[in-house]
């Protein structure tokens, strides 16, 4: 009876030997290839692009890869200012209804064919064609009357009426018309093996694992210093951090928790460059204010609950200081608007509010190497010394609104009805859920009971759209133009659009329409400031905070600079990354 067990044992031994050999061999290969190896940069992503069709791709991962593969008509720099790219220049007609782009000469797709105005026209047609099933950019082209191409290097866009955000909507990657014309747009081979005109050409896409790009030596602009650019798909941030530590990845973002422990480690801080940035994204709570619930039709109640939420405390304790509170949606999009109110808190208060007076946004550069950690927050929110958290004021506002504390239950009530509502949150978002849990606690202290209902994204979205909720926590990534809040605020967007709070204010509607048409920057700014002031009063949404992202770069590389869209999402982006002097 000893024999049967001996066999599996042998097999096991053989397997171990084989695998050990394999590992050694793998290691040896890696080492042997190192000295003369061309520059290879491995960028860790948590999600895989859905497609590399430049028109239908709307997810963040696809759009990052697109930036390297394709050339955009116009683009933006680190400060999100529009800069020329394929369009060398552009000009407006006197009536501000015609925008003319002048294309760069001598630009070629990766297959050698020239890029002309015909390709731009083709891309535009696909963007607005319902059959393309492209959702991302359709809305911004609705004001367009016509697009024409009088010659190979000119594109003329005619608008129905002046449209202030126009230029930014032409940040579009250009498709090769000769590849896509006449083929099924959704299953074209180019969707998985794209031909672009960008600084990198497509090399390989291993489903579920990685996308490999190779430098395009025929690029019209400055050639990138990296020969091979690899996007690795690592769904777990824990794994991508380990992968960075093992030297297999050159850039990844890390969690606030991981940063909290690693920032104390001198070895980590000296081996990696930390790049912090705050994306153009914010969390908000929509209070359904159409009267379908007894609480939130009253602006006093909305403002009260807004003051009762401790964003600063959450950022400090849970996010390790990695985030900025957002006072209202427009403060992120209007230069010079304070993200937190400048007025000091009411003096003579006690309790938790007193220590919230401490600097609201502790920046995360304490342990970062070589000076401040390049925070590229869009709002410049740092340095504010006031706080949005004010539970006393919240209590006062609720009293004013008639919601009085019932000593027996500890809950506020009005007309015998206790203040007890349900907040919908996205179950897949750590910040969504955690913030809701913290808020539950703080609200309880002012006599408001909040239940939390967690939903997955499609379920949450359908509840938001149909208005079947009392309050809901969600997030949004507006474009840098203040007009991108039209969907959240205009009454025409109730039901179908993004106006989940059912906010209805005829004046705000008119101002939003005015802001869309107004071309003079100063006057336009004034319009949106009026809207911001109104929102402060009405607070249909309580904006919460923008979480910051900590990116970590292997110090074998340098030149990467973050913008609100990360280290790749702008010009020069990936083109600035180069092997550190001294080499790998």
């Amino acid at each position, binding site marked *: 009876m000893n024999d049967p067990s001996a066999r599996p044992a042998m097999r096991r031994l053989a397997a171990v030997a084989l695998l050990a050999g394999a590992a050694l061999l793998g290691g040896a290969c890696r080492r042997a290839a190192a000295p003369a190896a061309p520059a290879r940069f491995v960028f860790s992503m948590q999600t895989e692009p859905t497609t590399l069709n430049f028109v239908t791709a*709307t997810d963040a991962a696809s759009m990052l890869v697109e930036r390297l593969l394709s050339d955009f008509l116009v683009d933006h720099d680190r400060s999100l200012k529009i800069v020329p790219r394929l369009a060398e220049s552009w000009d407006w007609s006197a009536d501000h209804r015609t925008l003319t782009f002048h294309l760069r000469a001598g630009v070629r797709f990766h297959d050698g064919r020239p890029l002309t105005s015909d390709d731009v026209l083709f891309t535009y047609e696909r963007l607005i064609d319902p059959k393309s099933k492209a959702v991302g950019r*359709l809305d911004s082209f609705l004001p367009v009357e016509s697009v024409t191409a009088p010659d190979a290097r000119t594109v003329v866009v005619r608008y129905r009426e002046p449209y202030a955000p126009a230029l930014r909507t032409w940040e579009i990657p250009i498709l090769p018309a000769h590849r896509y014309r006449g083929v099924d747009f959704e299953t074209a081979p180019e969707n998985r093996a794209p031909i672009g005109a960008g600084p990198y050409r497509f090399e390989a896409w*291993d489903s*579920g694992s990685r996308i490999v790009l190779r430098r395009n030596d025929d690029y019209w602009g400055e050639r990138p210093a990296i020969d091979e650019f690899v996007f690795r*798909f690592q769904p*777990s941030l824990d*794994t991508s951090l*380990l992968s960075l530590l093992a030297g297999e990845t050159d850039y990844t973002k890390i969690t606030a928790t991981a940063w909290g422990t690693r920032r104390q480690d001198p070895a980590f801080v000296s081996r990696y460059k930390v790049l912090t940035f705050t994306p153009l994204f914010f969390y908000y709570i929509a209070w359904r204010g159409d009267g379908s619930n007894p609480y939130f039709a009253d602006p006093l109640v909305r403002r009260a609950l807004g003051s009762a939420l401790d964003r600063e405390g959450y950022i400090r304790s849970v996010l390790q200081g990695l985030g900025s509170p957002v006072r209202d949606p427009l403060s992120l999009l209007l230069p010079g608007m304070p993200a937190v109110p400048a007025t000091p808190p009411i003096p003579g208060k006690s309790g938790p509010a007193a220590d919230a007076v401490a600097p609201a946004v502790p920046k995360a550069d304490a342990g970062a190497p070589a000076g401040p950690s390049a925070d590229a927050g869009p709002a410049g929110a740092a340095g504010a010394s006031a706080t949005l958290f004010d539970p006393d004021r919240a209590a006062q506002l609720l009293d004013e609104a008639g919601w009085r504390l019932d000593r027996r239950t500890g809950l506020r009530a009005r007309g015998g009805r206790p203040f007890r509502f349900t907040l919908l949150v996205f179950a897949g978002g750590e910040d969504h859920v955690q913030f809701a849990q913290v808020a539950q606690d703080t609200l309880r202290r002012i006599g408001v009971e909040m239940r939390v209902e967690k939903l997955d*994204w499609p379920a949450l979205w*359908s509840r938001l759209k149909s208005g079947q909720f009392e309050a809901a926590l969600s997030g949004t990534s507006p474009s840098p133009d203040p007009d991108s809040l039209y969907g959240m605020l205009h009454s025409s967007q109730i039901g179908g659009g993004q106006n989940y709070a059912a906010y209805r204010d005829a004046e705000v509607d008119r101002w939003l329409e005015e802001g869309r048409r107004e071309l003079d920057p100063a006057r336009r700014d004034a319009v949106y400031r009026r809207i911001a002031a109104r929102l402060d009063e009405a607070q249909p949404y309580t904006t919460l905070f923008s979480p910051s992202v900590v990116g970590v770069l292997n110090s074998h590389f340098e030149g990467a600079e973050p913008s609100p869209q990360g280290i790749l999402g702008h010009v020069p982006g990936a083109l600035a990354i180069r092997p550190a002097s001294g080499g790998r």
Partner: protein
Amino acid sequence: MAGYAARRLLLALPTLLGISLLCFLILSVLPGDPIAARLEGGAPLSAEAEARLRAELRLDRPMMARYADWLAAAARGDLGRSLRDGRPVSAIVGDALPWTLLLNAAAVAALYAVALPLGLAQARRPRSPAARFAGAGLVAVSVVPPFVAALTLQAIVSVRLGWLPLEGTGRDAVASGFGPATLPASLLSVAAHLVLPALCLALAGWGFAARYARDAFVQALPGSAVAAARARGLRGAALLRHFAPALALPLVWLLGGLIPSLLAGSVVVEEAFSWPGIGRVMVQAVLGRDTPVAMALLLLSGTAVLAAQLLIDLIYPALDPRLRQRVPDRTSAAGAAGAPDRMHRAGGPA
């Protein structure tokens, strides 16, 4: 035998049909629709754009009509396209399935390689402290959550010691333009990348499988039968050959239970090791209400369960002569369920 197999296959069809209808119903009553998945990150979408998209994706049709469409296409072998990115479902599943099969086959091999010898050792010498200790150890290991096991193994074996690759499939060696990419090198690379994820998957099953194997061996090889065989002069390989069918029965039974899980991806392990398997595809499909992809995967696992049952019912008579007479009767499902009973009786070849 062939007729029996054909009858079973025919019976499987309505079962699959029922599974597909049930799955479609469940997916349809989930709140929300696939358009939401295209709006990850909260990109704005006007009512007009949404209506256009809904019509284009045919989401405005009633559920039974969509099911009929799906069924008619599936009958022709067309599983449709993903509602998320328009890719053919067959391509999406085809990309992920081989990796899942490979990983789970390796995990089953690891499961057997540890559980069988240990089970045998425990069956032979139930009081041996070493066997008891190992068994207890495996039970302890099996309660470690997979993501903890994954992170620990990765941090120690890959990052600290550098013995095995951290994550990925290792096919990089195949496709990378830099450095030699020979087939053997790629295979070795993939094999090395398999070790940790397979181990993490096997970890949870070891304790159970070892106990199962011990009990099965105890029943299949009573000491008296072994002594009787020895008395007849059987030794070594001959002894083993004598007992092989009796030993094989419980193992086949165990494998039958494992086959369906070969196709099921483990989301946790796949995420921890960036393994491009079915588990993540499935989660994404359900979260994105991507009905065609989810349907294909549900049907695949349904087919696997049915196929495994059929396979076992066909193999059993081959191993156990006493069952051959009974095959044609229609107690197939009961036959599978009654298997442990038969193991008792199969014990002593006298």
